[in-house]
């Protein structure tokens, strides 16, 4: 019998205190939720000493309910507003940056109310009046274009209410969202900061606290009208780097300092109470934004041995394709005519490099020169992901192919650097 049937049959649920008789003895503890990798035929019980143990259901002789599960406490409560502090909205979109663990279900819940957030991070409220709101709670990999647009609308709403904005976001695709917002907001009165954590906030060693605190500080005080990402600068808990939203990329699967500015200098840092801006960000202006996006855009990662069929599939029905090409910006030279055909049919094709670092330059080798002649747009030193997001925005706003090319090759939101420092 598996654990689900067993619990159903006995009328039990996780969180119940039970006494279990097995063929080897008696165990009392709290029934725990099943771990994904736990054996189906095992009950997980938390003992009084805190340890969880697995008991094989086949060895269980009897179960006695000692106490029904306690209902999870709901903590509301509010915090008094300090008139001398700025107001900062913290918009939750997912991830576990400010959260608490429900140990009855094992789930990590985001802190929803100011009461919960102040409990999780009281130091935030000494920096600003925090207005937390959960917009939605999705895994970063489940984020889509519609959600970017919803985030933008929510950000605009908060900005209109005179608040700085911090968006908490899962880290996997935070760079994409940052780029999308950077193009949607053509002018901002203050910083819009995205922040995440690489170690979940239920751990004592989480990077969430420093990241969120630094993000709020930056949102509350930086003289900037741009979208940026604030995350740990190094492995130490002392400083957070500020990255321009269009140049930032997650460069490590696990490290705290996974986020890096690519092909540019970092836009600044937050060190304790010190907020420093290097000048790579747009200055504040009136709120102007437009969230329209052309969703029929694909991102093609070329590799040796890619079939023509798969290569072509990226272009079918697409209004635009961003290619992450090899080296200076290449694909198999056999595919040049294919690319040319799709461009002639009206598809915008932008070349970027899988090297990540450095710029595209299609003048150096013959394949590149042929790609230019075929009408491929030079993505310069844009990140492939940023170019993908930008092309969606540009296609929704440009009138014709020439305008698409001009916009793609011009830096709109700091996405292209004219020079790359040594």
């Amino acid at each position, binding site marked *: 019998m598996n654990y689900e049937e067993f619990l159903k049959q006995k009328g039990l649920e996780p969180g119940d205190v039970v006494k279990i008789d097995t063929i080897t003895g008696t165990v009392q503890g709290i029934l725990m939720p099943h771990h994904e990798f736990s054996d189906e035929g095992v009950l997980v019980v938390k003992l009084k000493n805190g340890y*969880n*143990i*697995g008991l*094989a259901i086949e060895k269980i002789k009897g179960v006695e309910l000692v106490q029904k599960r306690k209902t999870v406490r709901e903590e509301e409560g509010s915090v008094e507003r300090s008139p001398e502090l700025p107001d900062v909205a913290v918009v939750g979109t997912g991830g576990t940056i400010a959260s*608490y663990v429900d140990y009855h279900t094992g789930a990590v819940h985001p802190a929803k109310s100011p009461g919960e957030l102040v409990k999780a991070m009281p130091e935030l409220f000494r920096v600003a009046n925090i207005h937390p709101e959960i917009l939605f709670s999705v895994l970063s990999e489940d984020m889509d274009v519609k959600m970017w647009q919803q985030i933008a609308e929510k950000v605009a709403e908060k900005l209109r209410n005179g608040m700085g904005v911090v968006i908490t976001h899962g880290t996997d695709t935070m760079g994409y969202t940052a780029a999308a917002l950077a193009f949607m907001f053509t002018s901002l009165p203050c910083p819009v900061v995205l922040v995440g954590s690489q170690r979940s906030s239920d751990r*004592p060693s989480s990077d969430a606290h420093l990241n969120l605190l630094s993000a709020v500080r930056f949102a509350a005080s930086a003289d900037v009208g741009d979208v940026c990402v604030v995350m740990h600068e190094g492995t130490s*808990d002392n400083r957070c780097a500020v990255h321009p939203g269009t140049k930032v990329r997650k460069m490590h699967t696990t490290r705290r300092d996974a986020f890096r500015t690519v092909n540019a200098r970092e836009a600044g840092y937050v060190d304790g109470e010190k907020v420093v801006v290097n000048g790579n960000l747009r200055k504040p202006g009136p709120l102007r934004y437009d969230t329209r996006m052309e969703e029929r855009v694909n991102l093609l990662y070329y590799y040796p041995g890619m079939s023509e069929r798969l290569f072509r599939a990226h272009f079918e029905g697409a209004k635009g394709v961003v290619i992450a090409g090899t080296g200076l910006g290449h694909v198999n030279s056999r595919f040049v005519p294919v690319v040319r055909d799709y461009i002639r049919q009206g598809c915008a094709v932008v070349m970027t490099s899988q090297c990540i670092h450095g710029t595209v330059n299609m003048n150096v080798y013959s394949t590149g020169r042929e790609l230019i002649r075929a009408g491929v747009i030079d993505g310069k030193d844009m990140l492939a992901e940023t170019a993908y997001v930008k092309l969606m925005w540009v296609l929704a706003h440009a009138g014709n192919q020439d305008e698409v090319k001009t916009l793609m090759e011009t830096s709109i939101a700091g996405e292209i650097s004219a020079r790359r420092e040594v």
Partner: protein
Amino acid sequence: MDWKSIGLKVGLEIHQQLDTKKLFCDCSSELCEEVAGTFVRKLKAAEGESGEIDLAAKETAERNLVFRYEVIRGSTCLVECDEEPPHALNPEALKIVLSIAKHLNAEVLDEIHVMRKIVVDGSNTTGFQRTALVAVGGKLKVGEKEIGIPTLCLEEDAARKMEMEGQEVTYRLDRLGIPLIEIATTPDLHTPEEVREVAERIGLMLRATRKVKRGIGTIREDLNISVGGGARVEIKGVQELNLLPEYVKNEAMRQLKLVEVSKKLQERNAMVVDKLFDVTPVFAGSNSKVIKSALNSGGKVLAVKLIGFAGLLGKKWEEMHRLGSELAQHARVFGLGGIFHSDELPNYGITAEEVARIRELLALAENDAFVLAAGDGEKLERGLRAVMQRARVAIAGVPEETRDPLPDGTTRYSRPLPGGARMYPETDVPPIRVTPSLMADLIPIEEFEEKVARFSREYGISTEIAGQIIRDWRDLEFESLCAKFPAAISEIARVLTNTLGEMQGRGLDVEKLSQPVLEEIFCAYISGKFAKEGIEKVIEAFLLGAPTIEKAIEKSGVAKLSVEEVEKVVEELLAAHPEIKAKPNPEGALMGLAMAKLRGRADGKTVNDVVRKKLSGSPQV
């Protein structure tokens, strides 16, 4: 002391490092002195499983510490730095624990779940220690008594604490993640000696697996001690087996004393006033160095009022088991050193007049006491609040707490006893279903007594010698050498016990005598390169720096002489001592002279043959 009558109860937790790679990554578990770099972190007390913040974790976090971690190449990777999730649990380490569980007749759980135990003192970069309960309900027979082993856990060792400066604590990461087996006993030990005996017994059993680390710090004991009317106090991380009884005795005495103090306080209706009194003006012209320097840097002097505490705080700072030192230790953990209490004043530059003014300011009656300290702001207040809290608890009795062992056999307050609130599941490590195949091929464990008896029986050596060989971790070497050189068993036993002990006593590095080296020595001996008496000399020459055994034989001058050479020596002796022949026992006399000259270079029998031949072959007088 009649330990039974005071209700002494002690439980042991033994932590032994296992000799495998690290528990949750592929790093080596060797310690190292070469630091490749450092980084700093802070920790925050996270909510425990029950939704409460653990008291011990909270108190540690309140100290606002910064942790610096030293990275060691080879034994530190991103996992120790908390920059990568843990890998799967090391199967070799699990096998060792399962083997021990089986040996102790413990019930291995059906599925093993790795937990996070919150520890925010910085010794774990994650802020928790990963630990898993593997088996329950074991038993160990010590003498006639059966000791219960309620739990066997597999957990990761913590980082090594290197130094503490101000609010910054430095840890080295090489030790973090080394697998530990934790064996807990029931609190059924009732005398200090029994505690030592059981600890040693478990240590020997662990060694018998041959899969545990050896050397200082590789095995550590936690003691849970209580006396009647006292409370459970945990002394964490004792490394010296021989000091165990001392810690037990001292802790029992401390608790008895505190029980006594609590009775007196209750009789007097003692009370702690919940207020900090600013007494800075009293010390405007103070001669106390501590107070002067605090005031000079803009600090103040605060006092705590303790109603009914007079005479119970203790006269002398160093005196053990005094409430005064308990209060000081609580202040110390919040970074506040140097508190003064009224029982020891006037002293330390604080005058009788100043004391009188404080008593007046605080409106103290005869039976009332005060504690004061100088310093600045938050640290001072936090420290004194900790003092107030500790004093309050003293009225009720002995508090449950964790204490650190000191080298002199006493202990010092470290933090409140951690509660059950500090455990939650390590979701990054999948649970392990214990299958029959996992329980196959366990490591056989031969208990100490069994092995001593077998050695004595199989090799004909005394149980003392056998015991010494096993205690010194030389048992594997001994058996392997005996198998190779069965004709030299008594020599092998002698070398592994007396000779090595003696050489070590002389400061020579006997670690150089690896198994292959010993094999070479015994091989040379068995093939007749030198006599039995020369073994020590060869070892000595090798330890003194001879590069090879061959050279050591040469250098020590024990190389065996040919019969002709022996004859030559004996002839020379005869020529030099013609009077020998006239002695009543010429053979014995000549033998004595010859052996004095030839010991180690020729065996006795050869010399004897030659002596006899030379004496009989010489012309009769």
